[in-house]
């Protein structure tokens, strides 16, 4: 390979140290630094839009297993609408989530309807009405479309994680288990924008509201 070419002795070294940095003009730092800052701001741009423009809805969670305490510093939220068997029963659900479904990785829209009953102490959850693979355009005034992703048998809406301080974790956890044992509701307040993207805003454990 290289060895039969007469190379000069002493050997030349490829790993030269970084070239001297003297005289490097300041823009060599500030241009990439500002671009990096732009990246930092761009990370949650979509979520900020959803937060500012989105409509407030309430979603029902699944019961939490008391033997499986919260891990880390965030809560994994499981919703009733995260279960394929629940979605399958809705109009339009059989083709997307039925036994003979053809696709396993796809996105879909779930139409939810505002509750008719109003309770003063705690909010009532919105009810799923139908599913479709295209964005519905004929929504009634009390309906909203939430965008979801099917990943195999897992269904995600991008609202499954809720970060909370380490110190408060145990208290919230105990509260949730206590409320669920009493048969009360643990629901999540979510904001959904006009394109169906959603972010979680606060937790309603019984009549208590947690917002972090």
């Amino acid at each position: 390979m290289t060895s039969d070419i007469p190379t000069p002795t002493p050997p030349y070294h490829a790993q030269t140290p970084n070239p001297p940095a003297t005289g490097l003009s300041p823009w060599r730092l500030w241009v990439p630094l500002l671009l990096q800052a732009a990246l930092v701001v761009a990370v949650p741009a979509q979520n900020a839009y959803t937060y500012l423009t989105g409509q407030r809805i309430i979603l029902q969670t699944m019961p939490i297993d008391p033997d499986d305490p919260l891990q880390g510093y965030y809560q994994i939220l499981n919703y009733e609408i995260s279960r394929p068997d629940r979605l399958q029963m809705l109009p339009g659900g059989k083709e997307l989530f039925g036994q003979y479904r053809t696709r396993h990785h796809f996105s879909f829209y779930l139409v939810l309807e505002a509750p008719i009953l109003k309770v003063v102490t705690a909010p009532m959850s919105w009810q799923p009405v139908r599913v479709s693979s295209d964005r519905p355009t004929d929504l009634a005034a009390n309906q909203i479309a939430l965008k979801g992703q099917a990943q195999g048998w897992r269904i995600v809406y991008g609202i499954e994680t809720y970060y909370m301080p380490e110190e408060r974790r145990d208290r919230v956890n105990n509260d949730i288990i206590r409320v669920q044992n009493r048969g009360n509701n643990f629901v999540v307040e979510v904001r959904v924008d006009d394109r169906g993207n959603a972010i979680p805003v606060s937790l309603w454990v019984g009549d208590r509201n947690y917002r972090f």
Partner: protein
Amino acid sequence: MVSEKFRRQLRQEAEQWWHEGLIDASAYGQLADRYQFSEIDSAARNRFTAILMGLGGILMGLGTITFVAAHWEDWSRLSRLFLLLSLFFGVNATGFYLWRQHTLPKSYQNLGQGLLLLGALILGANMALMSQIFHQSGNLYELFLVWGLGVMLMSFSLRLTSLGVLAGILLQIGYWLGFFGSISSEGFWGKSIIEHMPLVVMFFLIPLAYWCRSRVIFALSSIAIITSLLANLLRFEGWMIEVAIGLPPALFWTYTDRIWKFERSHRSPSSLDRHFQSIARSLSTIFLSLVLYVFSFNIWKYLLLGELSWEQWQSWRHIWIDLLILIALTLMGWLQLRSPKRRWQFRKNRAINSLTIAITIFVSVSLAFWHWHIQSIAIVNIILFNLMLLLFSISLIRDGLALGVRRTFWGGTFLLAIGIVSRMLEYNTGLLLKSLVFVLCGVGVMIAGLAFEQNVKKSQHLSIPNSSEEEAS
């Protein structure tokens, strides 16, 4: 730039010559002047401080990231964001101005580099905090990819190797997280980067290696290209396995920067190209050895083509873009071997040369293709792959001996020994035979090693060793 090892040896020798009266004080002074003997120790010291500063920067960065993760209650998220952003700008700016100040002692420049590294880690902490504020769920791999790209940007601008290495590592973490995690089906830019990781590395990190003149970045990028290409190809349930066997070694064996010609530095450009070529060829040889070793096992009849569903195929069909570009580059590289300028690489006095590599790749790919697509020839394949493994390892040993390259010699010996031992353990042979083979292998390796060292010593007496030979494997 003369290597430090050589200068150190020369200083030692020159001192001895001076004491023995071979040269006088003025000649010694001239040598000391020319090779800057006085700076050898301070260079080592500087490197040590640079490592310490870098390590300190990384530890402080990890501290910052953990601080974000700890989700400190007493501060609101916005004040934490403000704190982290000011820290981000402050640390980077301080690092930059210290690093480029040449009037300050060298240790301040090292501190500057360490701070720039810390700044790169704070960038990640900032991104994580932003995503936490809005309770973003999942897709951690996207965060790593964006982070890696951001750091790479800075590395390009400042021409800083340490940041380039960090960027490469972050991109790879992002790639593997995305590869093993469930990637959503559509609409995510992250998926495109994962799908085209070999191209991303080739068009960004390899030029960065040239720009920073860094062998570390080049080696890291080459490994990243090979592993991500393999991983992407193996998604096809075995339907692309021939490409996975043949393309990486063929691509890297003929690597030259005449294809990826981005910058020709005024400082010995050919030396850089040769060093990179040497790394590429070593990787190609190692990859081919692994292929021969793996397929010499009795696994052919168990390796079956999986069922590739239309959905799977649709989901990963964009790999064609990568394959077309990489195959085109490979063909260009092999065609360049025909040019008189590169004729020297077609070495006749080496057993592992372009011709033998080409034959090995061709035979391996053809056998695999025949087995899976035409007719099952498991027994033939096992015999032929074992034969090729044997010949390949003997050729490596022979090259190592003939050229006095230690790495090649020991690589070949190891391959041969592990090949024989694997066959022994794989097939049901008697214990006596097993023990005999183990003993023979051990004795063989010892004798070969002693013979090699004798040979090297002899050749060292005849000529001053050339370190570029050591590089070539």
